[in-house]
């Protein structure tokens, strides 16, 4: 199996020089789901943003390569890079409430991608959009096409965003904490829907989350991040049975369980944090920071 997304030694820094991502490498194969986990501020989302070219203005890629379907994105001029990314990758954003343009109806927001990226006729794009809305189990898609985002619930909007992410048949989808902004009851449906769509379309999926429970249900492989550094790469099953890095183990131990709901949560111990910090410092020394 060839990897569809390949990140090699990616370094991202604040313009002031502070490292955000430290020599991150990872592979996502076609048809596979790769999880990115870590605590807040570990740089999970920044990896997705670096791939999609939507890094915040204050950040810049200082070194490393991002290969998307055999093309090195970093060597392309900006306009062409946008085109490649638009055709091959899509994003399922974190907050469905801000991810749709409030002043436009749903229909044009989905068909736009088909017209822009695949060069479809508007009528064909509309038919396909209605089909996609059906695929994500939206009742009465024709009516929803005519609606404004504020007329729909958060769960509905996330379904629409999923439909629109899959619209142009991208080979890679980056899901950036797609369920954090949703109700717990809706979360499960959305996760199941993403998995279903991913399998049907055989897409590579990069799944960013801080929820190990979600990872265990959806991902095939995962990377654990700490302070912008990948500290463990693992296959799903192995990770949950025998985590290698002490920080991964501590992270797993800190997950609340249903079997012992009264038991107190185990925090990640200071010793583990110190050891992991030390590792990060050693990396920085080697990188000459």
């Amino acid at each position, binding site marked *: 199996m060839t990897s569809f997304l390949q990140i090699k030694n990616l370094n991202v820094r604040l313009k002031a020089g502070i490292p955000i991502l430290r020599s991150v490498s990872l592979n996502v194969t076609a048809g596979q789901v790769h999880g990115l986990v870590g605590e807040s501020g570990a740089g999970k989302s920044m990896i997705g943003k670096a791939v999609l070219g939507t890094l915040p203005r204050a950040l810049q890629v200082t070194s490393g390569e991002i290969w998307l379907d055999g093309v090195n994105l970093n060597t392309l001029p900006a306009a062409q890079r946008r085109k490649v990314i638009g055709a091959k990758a*899509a994003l399922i954003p974190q907050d469905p409430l801000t991810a749709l*343009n409030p002043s436009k109806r749903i229909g044009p927001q989905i068909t736009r991608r088909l017209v822009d990226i695949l060069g479809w006729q508007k009528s064909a794009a509309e038919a396909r959009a209605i089909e996609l809305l059906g695929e994500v189990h939206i009742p009465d898609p024709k009516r929803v096409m005519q609606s404004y985002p504020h007329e729909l619930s958060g769960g509905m909007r996330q379904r629409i965003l999923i439909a629109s992410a899959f619209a142009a048949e991208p080979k890679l989808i980056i899901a950036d904490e797609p369920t954090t902004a949703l109700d717990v009851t809706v979360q499960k449906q959305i996760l199941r829907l993403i998995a279903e769509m991913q399998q049907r379309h055989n897409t590579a999926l990069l799944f960013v989350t801080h929820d190990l429970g979600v990872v265990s249900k959806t991902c095939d492989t995962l990377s654990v991040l700490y302070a912008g550094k990948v500290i463990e790469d693992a296959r799903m099953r192995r990770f949950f049975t025998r985590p290698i890095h002490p920080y991964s183990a501590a992270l797993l131990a800190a997950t609340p369980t249903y079997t012992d709901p009264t038991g107190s949560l185990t925090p990640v111990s200071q010793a583990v944090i110190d050891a992991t910090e030390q590792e990060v410092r050693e990396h920085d020394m080697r990188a000459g920071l």
Partner: protein
Amino acid sequence: MRDARGDVTRPIGLRLWLSGGWLALLLLAALSAPLIAPKDPLVQDLFLGRMPPFWMAGAEPGYLLGTDSLGRDVLSRILYGARLALIVAFVAGSLTCLVGATLGLIAGYYRGWPDRIISRFVDIWMAFPPVLFAILLIAVLGPGLISIIIAIVVIDWTRFARVIRAEAMSQGAMDYVASAQVAGRTRFGTMLTEILPNVLPTIVALLTLEMGIAVIVEAILSFVNLSISTDSPTWGGMIAEGRTSVHQAWWVLVFPLITLFLTVLSFSQLGEGLKDHFDPVLR
């Protein structure tokens, strides 16, 4: 009420009716002033000076709102004055909007150095007292319609630039803008298709507000005799003249003042009403 799609459509509110109605009436009056004005606004008749409006004792027939100290018909002068006021409102208001909103949109969406340059300009601009600035400009450019319009654009573009910049900035941080870019849209294209429609309600509200302000600025400039040539009637000029004889002939001051007041109020109310009408969430 529901439209064909089953959406709730709000009836046009009383506010929109009243303000729109007044402005439509004024526009009509301004366009047809030569036809409907009972007298020539410039003809003086010193024997008919300071005649009271029609309902008061001693009113002269044909002079509905009375005459000023030179015997000119107040109503006709208000009607002709509306022409200048509305030209200034529409032309100066639109130009100010165009300049200010464009710069604000660019500053707020592109950030970085365009923002730094535009924002510094706004800061410097706002340090000048606006009315003094306008008077200074007219003094340099010389009086005349074009000068008034230029003066209004030059002193008021910052109002748009500041507000639209802030709006564009907050819209620019939304995920749908990032999504549009991931979909391969250019930055400029994203600005036009994603940001602009969402700041449009604010632009519309500001535009009508600005039209009202333009009317006021024009009146202020005529009041200090810096508007267009002194013999063509302007509301501000009439107010200035009426001020000197307010004890003998209050109507010379009060009627243009009421017209001015209603017009400016209508513009601001129209803006509020239209803003709600343009906003998909409130619609």
